[in-house]
């Protein structure tokens, strides 16, 4: 265990210790000053320049307050923690004071007082609340999470104003000391789940956690699986909804992406506005997304299986037009599909990396001009362009980016299997994926809930599954919630009868 240095009552010693810790840190302001009516109390104020607003902040108020007090009154105020500043905190070791400084607060050492005082301020600069980039919805709030873990927690609290919403802070990263918040609803979230999350967070040591993705990868059970075992969201309303289902939200500082756990296949297909829209349209769209998630993985493979092995499936005219379209293409169908798929992935990657307007341009240039030119040059057939475009559309219809990525990777596996063994390859590939999914779980919840194990929650989860039943029928919380408190919707007697 690392040895810690206690804060001394001698200001000089404390300054020396802080200098030792933060030498060659020119971004940190270190100010020697005197306080008190008679300017007879020496003190040392240190903070990160941009993180503390010296113009109009609690720190300025405190300094003004100290200037109006006598030496004895200053010590008395410090002893009683009567500084007139909320959330002021005392540290008894230099290391803790250093950590406090690095969270973006100001640290004050007063000569003759053997503790460091943390004075809260704005903290590090961040982007502020903006629209969520992914998970766009037609109906509902467009607020997205920010880089600040505190703001993110506040955005959740804004939506669930209940004292039962608990926020438990943990640190991750030996050197980065990133703040990680676990947000959950007391009584709804399972105690075992919370303990398991805590155990996993303590189960690794790493230099730095710069995004929630690092935590995700280090705490998931089957690291080799392409399927995400944590759900991610940039939407506070989605996070709040999950908390009400008895799930736990993991917020990491500097990351606008919250982790939702446990999760399952079905959760990745749902969107927030599934619950804001009427059930008929919500069900239709969800079904569409399920179909899309299937075809995003399998369509190019299916095309190869049908055209190379099982031509009897297609109507003759369609088959002949496929054959006509292929005439003159110099590559075998599998290479043609691979070329198109890789080109598409390349375009996507380029579009993401380029600045906004240029990204759009790349999409248009790639999709229209290069695609058309490739067809005209007989490098690929128009049918394959249609197949790949449709696959891409299907992939975009999957609301969760990580989950869609798994489909995009598996697509290549299916291409190989179908090019090799036709529909048998497709079935074998599907079976392999099903076996994998059936063995996968997220914090003890089978990944395929409620396709499997729906009886565990008396088949309630099947009401919100391939299709969503009317909201008034969804009266119980899903499997994640504490079994003793699953009821989430009640009607007055008259409504109930109606």
């Amino acid at each position, binding site marked *: 265990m690392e040895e810690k240095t206690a804060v001394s009552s001698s200001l000089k010693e404390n300054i020396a210790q802080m200098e030792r810790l933060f030498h060659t840190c020119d971004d940190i302001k270190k100010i020697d000053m005197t306080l008190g009516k008679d300017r007879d109390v020496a003190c040392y104020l240190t903070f990160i320049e941009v993180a503390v607003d010296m113009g109009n902040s609690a720190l300025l108020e405190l300094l003004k307050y100290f200037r109006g007090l006598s030496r004895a009154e200053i010590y008395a105020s410090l002893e009683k923690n009567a500084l007139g500043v909320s959330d002021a905190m005392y540290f008894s070791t230099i290391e803790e004071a250093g950590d406090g400084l690095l969270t973006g607060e100001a640290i004050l050492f007063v000569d003759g007082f053997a503790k460091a005082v943390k004075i809260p301020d704005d903290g590090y600069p961040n982007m502020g609340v903006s629209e969520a980039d992914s998970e766009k919805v037609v109906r509902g709030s467009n607020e997205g999470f920010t880089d600040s873990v505190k703001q993110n927690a506040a955005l959740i609290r804004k939506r669930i104003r209940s004292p039962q919403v608990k926020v438990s802070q943990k640190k991750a990263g030996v050197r980065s000391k990133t703040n990680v918040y676990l947000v959950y609803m007391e009584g709804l979230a*399972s105690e*075992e*789940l919370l*303990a*398991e999350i805590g155990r996993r967070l303590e189960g690794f040591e790493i230099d730095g956690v710069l995004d929630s993705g690092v935590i995700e990868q280090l705490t998931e059970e089957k690291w*080799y699986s392409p399927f995400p075992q944590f759900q991610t969201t940039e939407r506070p309303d989605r996070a709040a909804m999950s908390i009400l289902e008895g799930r736990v939200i993991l917020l990491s500082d500097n990351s606008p992406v919250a982790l939702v756990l*446990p999760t399952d296949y079905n959760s990745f297909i749902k969107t927030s506005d599934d619950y804001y829209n009427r059930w008929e349209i919500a069900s239709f769209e969800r079904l569409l997304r399920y179909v899309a998630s299937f075809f995003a993985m399998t369509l190019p493979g299916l095309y190869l*299986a049908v*055209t*190379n*092995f*099982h*031509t*009897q*499936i*297609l*109507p*003759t005219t369609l*088959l*002949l037009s*496929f*054959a*006509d379209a*292929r*005439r003159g*293409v110099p590559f*075998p*169908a*599998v290479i043609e599909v691979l070329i198109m798929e890789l080109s598409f992935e390349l375009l996507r990657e380029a579009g993401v990396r380029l600045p906004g307007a240029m990204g759009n341009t790349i999409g248009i240039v790639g999709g229209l001009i290069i695609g058309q030119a490739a067809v005209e040059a007989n490098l690929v057939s128009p049918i394959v362009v249609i197949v790949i475009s449709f696959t891409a559309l299907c992939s975009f219809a999957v609301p969760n980016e990580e989950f869609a990525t798994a489909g995009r990777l598996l697509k290549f596996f299916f291409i190989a299997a179908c*090019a*090799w*063994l*036709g*529909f*048998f390859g497709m*079935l*074998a590939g599907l*079976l*392999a994926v*099903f*076996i994998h999914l*059936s*063995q996968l*779980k997220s*914090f*003890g*919840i*089978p990944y*395929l809930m409620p*396709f*499997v*194990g*729906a*009886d*565990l929650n008396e088949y309630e989860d099947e009401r919100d599954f391939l299709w969503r039943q009317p909201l008034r029928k969804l009266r119980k919380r899903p*499997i994640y919630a504490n079994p003793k408190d699953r009821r989430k919707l009640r009607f007055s007697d008259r409504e109930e009868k109606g």
Partner: protein
Amino acid sequence: MRENMFSENNRISGRQAFRLLTYDLLGLSTLLVPPALGRTAGRDGIFCIAAGVAAGFLFLKLLGVVARDMEEAYPAYLVRRLGRVFGTLAQAGYVVWFVTLAGYTAYLFTDAVKKNLLREESYLLVLLVIVLLAVYGLWGGIEGRARIYEMLFWFLIIPLFLMLIFALDEIRTDYWIPVATAEPSAFLKGSYQMFACMAMITFVVFAGSYVEDKRRLLLAGKRALLFTGAIHAALYLILLGIFGAAALGEMDYPAVTLMSAVRISGGFLKRADAFMFAVWFFTLYALLNSCVFYGSVLVAYLYPGEAAGSSADATDSRRMRIVSAALLGVVCLLACGLQKHPLWRERCEMFLWRIGTPFLVLVPLVLCGVIFITGVRKDNGRHDAHASREKKSADREKKSDVREKKSADREKKCTGREGKRTAGMLAAALFCAGTLSGCGTAELEDRNFPIEIAVQGTEHVAAAWMNAGQEGNREIDYSHLKVILFAEEFIEDETAMQEFLAMLEETDEVPRNTYLVVAEDPAEFVGKTGAGSSEEGSGEPVFEESVGNYLEQLFENVSQIRRQAYPTLGMLYQERANRCETLLLPYISMEGDKPAVTQYFVWKRGEPAGVVDVPSALLSYFTMNETDEYSLTMENGTAVTLSGAHNQIHFEESGGSRRIVVKVRCAGKVHGASAGENGDVPSGDAAAGSAEREGMEELTRQVEQYMQQTAERLLTERQIDVSGSYRKLGGERRDWYAEYAAEPARYESGMEIVYQVQVDWE
């Protein structure tokens, strides 16, 4: 955590047990039972299914007694109840049965894949892929397996139901009758065959230790039997109604063939057999997995290692993985042997059905006897001893906990290495498998898709067909063949035709739903496509579309005759065995610049029977209720159209002569002014009521006379029965059916035909 979060507790739910058992029962039985019943009980197969399922229920009752008495896993229970020697012998017997059944299933699985999906591919490669998948699936334990089938259940069963519904349209209910004709021995044999497949319900006792509530497990067993029985009954009736009993008995996998024979309306999917094969892919995989899984559990009991004692732990252990991989190795070898040596196959089937099934029944029967005889007293004594053993083992377990924790830590460190090793092994196996494969077929544009073909010349047609693929630089893909045009000379040569049909059925390259037509010179119709009406300079006709497409459109969309009535290749295959239909193959000739049906060629009970004119053929279709409308012109020039026919065929015997009585009941319409002028049907309100009635009666009499004369002429002169009554004979007159079954050629010569027509004139 484990208990509360539900997963990895080595337990399955009642619903999962039901679906698992249904999959186990459904796969192999739907492939084996229909042809077996077709061979033995024929039309009485449906009763054999009922009897087999009923016997299955009785067997399940027996197993229920055993399951309720079990407090431990079945293998351990066997030793407790039967003693070490007999218990171990029973365990060993089960292992042999499981391994043999797994080997047989693997063989059938691979064979079915090869025949239906990958004809050109290596048997070993397909088998290897299946075995690798089985290894991967088994490592997930019983829960992983149960979850797969629970999820896939309706995704497979709903399409299966849809396909069966699509197939309803093609059924000929005459093929279902007569019933109760099978010999008692054949009935018993058929019932036993069905029961032998249902006896796999024995899995419930093996699944006993994985389901919390025994009652739920038994209920799942009952539901699985009922569900499988219902599917079997529906499937058998459909197969029987489409293929006929005799043809069914000669087919390899009629249930799969059915999917290729069914014509899906709508036009997007032409055939769904490749998709529908998924049903057998997953069900056979389930059975293979179950056999190896329970076999591995038994082996783990027979040769207990360090982890023995608690079945759940043993199942999870690395040792179980090794055992199941080893068993799969044996299964793989057995499947290879079964493919190479037909004798092995026979012996394997003999072992499974004649030794295995009695063994499956005998063991629970003996156990029930032991329970009945020893009863509660000995049981208690054993329980006490068992309890004390359990206490000791609990103490031991407590001590071993510390050891286990250490070993778990060690294992954790090894997991990474092991994962890499496993992935490496799988990759290597797949790579090796890849070397067995041609890895690809001809590209789409490098294949020829003939739409129609001509068959002519009576010598070496089979050889010519086989060599056709080597002519030209493209592979020939017959999957879109619409029409086979036979030269009249060829189809009349019975030997050549039978040889040709046998060759086609064996190669199975041509779709069963290919239409058949006859022409004097079929070559003049083939390959003549283009936009003009004649080729420049040659004077030969050039059609706007291929003849195959033209005729398909004609038969399916334009003709008044039901498309199911047009003979297809599948019908000819069936007729080789069934020999009960009178099929009318359209005979085409050029009329102007288009091919038109100018005559019909009769294919009577699997043999050629010459050409008939169009009116006679149309009468035949009309009599058999195969056409929506039937138009004819009377001798006096009156044109009438008959529609909405509900014709019935009866058989009568009077004064030593036997009659086919055709009762025609339909609506009629008179065309043109000539009718009124001739006084046949007075038109308009001006006609007096009685005169009108008389006119109608006269016209009906003329229609009846026309039909009578036409039918009689064909029957007496050509021995062609336009009513196609032979296939209905069994349902109406069992005594005649039995008499003619031995000598069907005598049928037409000993019959008279009588038409009784009733027309409701508009």
